[in-house]
């Protein structure tokens, strides 16, 4: 992998050993909506970032960052 970036590589790769400890979870809501949530409990989380290609999703106040969202853990 070659990084082609203006950011100094020592900044990019700082805390590389902590990558696994990330507490942010990624949940998908269907209809192309993915969000990064900070878990509060096993079925609740606070939205950190919304990832959706549909610009209208960003107007939905329920998807706004900072909102609490409940989800069901999925067992595969």
């Amino acid at each position: 992998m070659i990084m082609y970036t203006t950011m100094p590589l020592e900044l990019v790769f700082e805390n590389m050993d902590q990558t696994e400890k990330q507490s942010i979870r990624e949940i998908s809501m269907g209809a192309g909506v993915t969000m990064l949530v900070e878990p509060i409990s096993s079925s609740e989380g606070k939205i950190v970032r919304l990832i959706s290609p549909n610009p209208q999703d960003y107007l939905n106040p329920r998807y706004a960052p900072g909102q609490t969202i409940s989800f069901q853990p999925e067992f595969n």
Partner: protein
Amino acid sequence: MPVDQDSNQRKKLTGDSNQEQQPAVTEEPMPDDAKKRVLDTITQLGQTNVPQLESNIYCLSIIGQVEGHIQLPPQNKTTKYEHLIPQLVAAEQNSKIEGVLVLLNTVGGDVEAGLAIAEMVASLTKPVVTLVLGGGHSIGVPIAVSGDYSFIAETATMTIHPIRLTGLVIGVPQTFEYLDKMQDRVVHFIARHSKITEEQFKDLMLRTGELTRDIGTNVIGADAVKYGLIDEVGGLGKALKKLNELIEKARNEERIVQ
């Protein structure tokens, strides 16, 4: 009653469009608290019943680092390859999507992932307009030129510099060759998809005295247009207007074919 609502929600999930779901919400008004409950419980599989406008534009935002094969540490804000590529496939396949708007504010990132995104965008059959806001540096440059038409905000910048390699090098000539080829892939792509020539781009890339930590150039707004890298200086309004024009043009062409 709550059981019915759950099964109702599940039934709606099988419907394939939001338009079908909307009447269901308005036709049977629910008691206020029950309605609230349904809206509050968003399961990982489910959808909310919030009536939504459907957009015919797919919006791809590329922010922070373009992440490839290695997950970057948490202080990096990243755009993940695995998020973008399926989105682009969906955009190409979905008949309701008529155009794609790519918003860039990136510091660069993984060469392969960046080129993959750029190639995907370039090969879409639907009109694509790109808009560089803030910055579109390094591997952001090929992504910025990959659309049908590109815009750059007046204050936005693009850093053009060579690809670097750090760490242990085994076999200097081979590594040099490899890096040179890697660089060529980027330069060819940019020259093919914008009005800048390879010579001009390399000239910008190898300039000295303009960047403190590197060789290369930082082109700002109008300069990027002057060099032919970007088509026009403009913001969101201009970009959406252009995209709608291209969508209209594509519709007319389709009508002629039919």
